[in-house]
């Protein structure tokens, strides 16, 4: 019995000594706060904050004297927790979602030519500025879908990108990836949008798209505050988003849509496209 205890004890002691020595020799400093912040962050490494990955962001927060950038996917809740850890004042962030400003799928918008090649919008855009006659419309080849780190984008059968308002965290990766700049960041609370991205004149738009904005000005006449027509394209003035829904029914080409109606039809996101109120998303 004694031999057992003594010998095992001796082995343990030796090992402990060796380890203790090694621990001194190979010590590595890590700020525990950095790890704590890394835990909280969404971990998508999306880069929306402007730093290389979530660990880069955590490093910045710990090493800086203030929070120099926000984490849009994390939202208010994550920012609050980070502020707690660091002892800073919480940083306000306005939740945003990305919206595809186009409804011109393969059925509704005309082709310029038959495209052969890599099924990718950026690649197709390099071939004579993309196969659609509309210079700003969604090409439907899914570059944004593949880019989205949160699986919030889906291509419809007819080749149109739709974004789930629930899954979208507002990181802005798709905005960067889209070669036609058809995806815009909008305030989460604004549910009405002019879903068109063509700056061509109305006559031209009518020729190639069934559902594009023809700049008829009816919306601005209806709700002067909430709409603006510039360069042959109407847009919602998001400061007055709550007035915007009034013009939805008046739009002759149906390119103004309100997402509370359950837009877009036919996608698996249709049921979750109802707007989510501020604060609920963080949960």
């Amino acid at each position, binding site marked *: 019995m004694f031999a057992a205890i003594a010998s*095992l004890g001796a*082995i*343990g002691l030796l090992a402990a000594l*060796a*380890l203790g020595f090694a621990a001194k020799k190979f010590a590595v400093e890590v700020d525990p706060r950095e790890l704590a912040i890394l835990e909280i962050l969404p971990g998508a490494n999306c880069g929306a904050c402007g730093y290389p990955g979530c660990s880069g962001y955590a490093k910045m927060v710990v090493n800086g004297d203030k929070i120099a950038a926000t984490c849009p996917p994390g939202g208010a809740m994550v920012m609050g927790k980070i502020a707690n850890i660091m002892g800073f004042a919480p940083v306000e962030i306005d939740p945003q979602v990305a919206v595809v400003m186009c409804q011109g799928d393969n059925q509704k918008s005309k082709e310029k030519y038959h495209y052969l090649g890599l099924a990718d919008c950026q690649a197709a855009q390099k071939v004579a500025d993309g196969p659609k006659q509309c210079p700003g419309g969604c090409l439907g080849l899914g570059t944004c879908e593949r880019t989205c780190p949160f699986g919030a984008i889906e291509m419809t059968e007819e080749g149109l990108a739709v974004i789930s308002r629930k899954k979208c965290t507002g990181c802005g990766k798709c905005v960067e990836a889209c070669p036609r700049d058809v995806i815009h960041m909008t305030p989460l609370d604004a549910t009405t949008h002019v879903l068109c991205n063509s700056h061509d004149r109305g006559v031209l738009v009518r020729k190639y798209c069934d559902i594009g904005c023809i700049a008829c000005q009816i919306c601005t006449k209806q709700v002067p505050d909430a709409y603006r027509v510039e360069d042959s394209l109407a847009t919602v003035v998001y400061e007055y988003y709550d007035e915007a829904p009034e013009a939805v029914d008046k739009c002759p080409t149906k390119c103004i849509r309100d997402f509370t109606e359950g837009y877009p039809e036919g996608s698996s996101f249709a049921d979750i496209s109802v707007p989510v109120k501020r604060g609920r998303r963080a949960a």
Partner: protein
Amino acid sequence: MAELLLILVSAIFVNNFVLSRFLGICPFLGVSKKVETALGMGMAVTFVMTVATVVTWFIQYFVLIPFGIEYLQTIAFILVIASLVQLVEMVIQKTSPVLYQSLGIFLPLITTNCAVLGLAVLNIQKEYSFLEGIVFALGAAIGFTLAMILFAGLRERIDLCPVPKSFRGTAIALVTAGLLSLAFMGFAGLVKG
């Protein structure tokens, strides 16, 4: 000499720890996503295996047997292995933070890696001499590393494949591991032992 060579070949190919004895499956599946990481893991395991064999051999023959406490073999060996793993962990964290990050939890888990303990125990069971033991450990470690990097190479390739949804991830990895093990069965009977 020929005897040692046979032990080595046997441990690498015929009775490959991972693919024939099915020991050490945890890191085999866990850190075989990239060849570099797999190689790093292989190195770490090689070190632990070799040193553990040396130390446990001494403990077995100079402590446990003389004091008649062979029944404490498992505990004693795990103690040794655990300390070694701790040591390796510290060294890797200091020298290669990238490798440290990619090995993650699997590094401390070498402690409970049955390949290491299995090796130490087998070594005693087979009543290998000190030199034979070291060769056996080396063979086992090389075999482990070989299996790791072969498998990692395959997985890197599978990562580019449109695997059906139901088979993605661990499922396809296990199927592949099975097929790899199948291929290794060709060595059966190559060396008796």
